[in-house]
């Protein structure tokens, strides 16, 4: 079909609507490697600005770690650039299986299957292990990729109120007649930075013979005493039936994801999951990089320990400055501003102060809960965090929000 003016007009109108609603997403071009200190071109064509990055998922500071980069180079030399095939035809190398075995050991599960991304893992896993005779019961704040995976599955779907165990139990009772029940949650919730009550969820799943699924993308590598994830933090290693996670955040930050868990469920994914069957898997240099990441994290907890200390310093600094943050102990620290425009104004002013942090507002977060989501890294040094705190104090003073209550900020700026 010809791309007529009429067709072009349809899309132009939609895009104009997105802009007018203040929801138009603009990329900022980073000219350096991903790290605590980066050089950014924004807006497009502007001269480069050196800023401190406090909005990356680079929790362990491994995105540009010299040993990881070196391992990726070596993987490129030894195993090539791409596979030109899906896994089950001729797209599996020894290092793919080696990485699967290493992830299995690291997470304390029975087996693992790689996916091109965790988005793909979540898109494929539910339809691979469930049928229309089953039910999925998910926390109401699970990640968008899980929602997409749920939509692709023929099992019926219900939800429970965020982290409300009483409500979850009522849903397990309501659906107790189903062949299989799968409870679905994030390990660490990406927008609020809070942690799922996996110990309680395991108890309920055992009581009602339900399976438990956890997306640990914002936890793998650093949550728990040795960084195994939310299941380690909650003392339920070996009791989670399905864990999905990403290699695009703490575990090196490049790309790729996996499903790890009970061996029969992993095998079901190998036989039936469509993103696995119909897409190339992770490229060899990235596989080699992730293998090195797991070697580093298995040898020492130094990086997750440093991240924990940085997080404590950052959370205390924000509270002492008089800002409102979401309670918790993870490196995802939302600074609450409640008003969408205020979140954009504060983000812009922080950038002028050399701090790169993004404002989030409805529909990414609920109405009236706009915020700056900050994310701390083991790649940050204390001087980075001190500079960022100084910027937050300066900008907070300008907008007169320091020491103010939620209601006082809402009264002044609205929701």
């Amino acid at each position, binding site marked *: 079909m010809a791309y007529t003016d009429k067709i072009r007009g349809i899309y132009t109108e939609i895009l104009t609507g997105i802009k007018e609603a203040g929801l138009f997403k603009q990329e900022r071009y980073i000219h350096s490697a991903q790290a605590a200190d980066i050089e950014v071109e924004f807006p497009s064509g502007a001269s480069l600005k050196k800023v401190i990055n406090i909005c990356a998922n680079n929790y362990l500071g491994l995105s540009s770690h010299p040993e990881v980069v070196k391992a990726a180079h070596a993987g490129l030399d030894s195993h090539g650039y791409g596979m030109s095939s899906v896994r089950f035809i001729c797209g599996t190398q020894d290092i793919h299986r080696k990485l699967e075995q290493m992830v299995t050991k690291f997470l304390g599960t029975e087996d693992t299957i790689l996916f091109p991304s965790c988005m793909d893992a979540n898109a494929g896993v539910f339809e691979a292990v469930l049928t229309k005779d089953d039910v999925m019961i*998910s926390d109401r704040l699970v990640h968008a990729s899980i929602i997409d995976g749920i939509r692709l599955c023929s099992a019926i779907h*219900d*939800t429970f109120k965020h982290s409300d165990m009483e409500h979850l139990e009522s*849903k397990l009772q*309501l*659906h107790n007649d189903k062949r299989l029940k799968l409870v679905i949650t994030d390990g660490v919730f990406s927008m609020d930075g809070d942690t799922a009550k996996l110990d309680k969820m395991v108890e309920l799943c055992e009581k009602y013979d339900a399976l438990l699924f956890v997306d640990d993308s914002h936890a793998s590598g650093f949550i728990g005493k040795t960084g195994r994830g939310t299941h380690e933090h909650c003392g339920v290693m070996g009791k989670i039936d399905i864990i999905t996670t990403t290699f695009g955040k703490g575990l090196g930050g490049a790309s790729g994801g996996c499903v790890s868990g009970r061996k029969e469920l992993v095998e079901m994914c190998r036989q039936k999951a469509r993103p696995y069957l119909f897409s190339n898997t992770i490229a060899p240099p990235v596989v080699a990089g992730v293998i090195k990441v797991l070697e580093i994290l298995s040898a020492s907890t130094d990086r997750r320990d440093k991240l924990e200390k940085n997080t404590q310093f950052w959370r205390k600094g924000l509270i002492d400055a008089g800002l409102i943050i979401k309670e918790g102990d993870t490196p995802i620290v939302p600074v609450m501003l409640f008003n969408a425009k205020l979140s954009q104004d504060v983000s812009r002013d922080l950038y002028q102060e050399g701090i790169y942090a993004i404002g989030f507002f409805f529909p990414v977060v609920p109405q009236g809960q706009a915020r700056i989501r900050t994310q701390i890294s083991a790649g940050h040094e204390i001087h980075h965090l001190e500079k960022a705190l100084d910027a937050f104090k300066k900008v907070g003073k300008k907008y007169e929000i320091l020491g103010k209550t939620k209601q006082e900020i809402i009264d002044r700026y609205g929701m």
Partner: protein
Amino acid sequence: MEEMKEVIKDYVIKEYVEDDTEINFDTPLISGGIVDSFSMVSLKRFLENRYQISIPDDKATPDAFDSVNKIVALVNKYLK
């Protein structure tokens, strides 16, 4: 009829409303963002258990569940 309306309204509030949003018998539930379409399944199962009815899947549409009054009309269709 009035009792059924109150029972369903109370269930919707208990099940789906997590803030101080007030609802009446005509408040748009699904198109108004109070009940997400994913969560309709528990509402359907609640109605079927409570009123001993079976609502065909193709009749349990977002539109048919969009207000307490519409839900009451749907339930009444399948009551014996």
